[in-house]
């Protein structure tokens, strides 16, 4: 199974979740962007589109920023949190939460918006959100 298909199935995303987009692999990272972004070859860019996921030997780790824009329709392995917990996770924290999800990578949601990616091992949810300026 391709990493893109793995992510689609894990989060029960729609069949067309990357409709109109293309991916490319650079070392152990898969990037996603428009076809024009992937075809651009006038110079070697530092970055094409955004990072979709990192490939590890036994897993595929989705990125926070890709899931924020492409993962809103996730129907499985998503954990909804309140504002206080969302901030705690963005600031690098870990929370305990009893959620009906599989262990492994999950999508963290506040209101209707994807906050980022975490790793869940019941009942602990650990943030995988990249370090950013602290959120108050």
């Amino acid at each position, binding site marked *: 199974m391709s990493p893109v298909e793995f992510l689609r199935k894990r989060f029960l995303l729609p069949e067309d979740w990357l409709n109109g*987009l293309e991916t490319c692999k650079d070392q152990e990272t898969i990037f996603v*962007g428009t076809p024009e*972004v992937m075809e651009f070859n006038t110079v070697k*860019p530092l*970055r094409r589109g955004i990072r979709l996921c990192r490939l590890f030997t036994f897993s595929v780790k989705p990125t926070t920023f890709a899931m924020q824009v492409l993962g809103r329709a996730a129907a499985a392995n998503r954990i909804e949190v309140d504002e206080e917990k969302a901030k705690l996770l963005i600031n690098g924290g870990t929370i305990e939460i009893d959620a009906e999800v599989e262990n492994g990578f999950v999508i963290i949601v506040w*209101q209707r918006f994807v906050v980022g990616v975490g790793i869940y091992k019941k009942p602990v949810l650990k943030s995988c959100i990249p370090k950013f*300026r602290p959120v108050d």
Partner: protein
Amino acid sequence: MRTRRDLFPVEFIARYEKFIPDFDEFLEAMLTPLPRVFRVNTIKAAPEEVLPLIADLNPEPLSYLPGAYQVQDGAGLGRRLIHFLGLIYVQEAASMIPPLLLNPQPGQRVLDLAAAPGSKTTQMAAMMKNQGLLIANDLSFQRVRGLIGNVDRMGCLNVVVCRADGIVLARQLSGTCDRVLVDAPCSSEGTIRKTQEALQRWSVRGIENFSRVQKGLITAGYQALKPGGLMVYSTCTIAPEENEVVVAYLLKRFPEAEILPMELSNFQMRPALSDWNGNKFPPAVVQCRRILPQDNNTEAFFVALIRKPDDVTC
């Protein structure tokens, strides 16, 4: 007793008093803190989804900028949850004008020659509905890191980020771009309302150095345009050497380049200068526009909308 004028270098006053209308009003505006303005990132959400999340700040829409809002007390806006989620981008109002005038469309190939930190890049990516190709370039590695961070946060899937000399890159892209934005590095006199740094660094020699770089960038940006393509040249500075003089230089190199008239409803822009230091500019230069801080309560800006004619060979 110290007056407003004493807060600026004597040479600054002497240069600009000559041509800036309502000069005392201008100085007063330059010393007044800017209102906090943000735009909703329509790549991720519609304004009606986002605004209720910051209702406590009572955001007021800016009539001349669709999707942009002003708040009275915006301190800490950049540390809010909705900022991290990429639902808003804090951006000065005048800085949103160049992309608005360039009006990039979905599916087009657009070049942003001096893109970092990505305010205008991410604004254009949203205007393009996250489709097509937006080439965002900057020379400084440090600044490119910030640019990538903003492209990620705003979810821009139509952006490639390059780190190259803008002049070299634009020449490599010769004749291929539908739209080019040259928001040139400048002496940043227009940002004095935000930070006094520009005033502390201010010198005529600095202005002349920037002018040389800007002439190279505007020329290269024009060369990157397809026939019929549009370019916006903009700076956040007042110095004619970085504005009208640069556009006049382009017209001297490429006499066929067309300077287009510009107008925005509910937003006042003033005509550019027709001459400076005894030198008359080509008549088309007055079609460029100056944005003065006292007119719309923004930073000072300069904008030129330039078209490459259809019948020009690249």
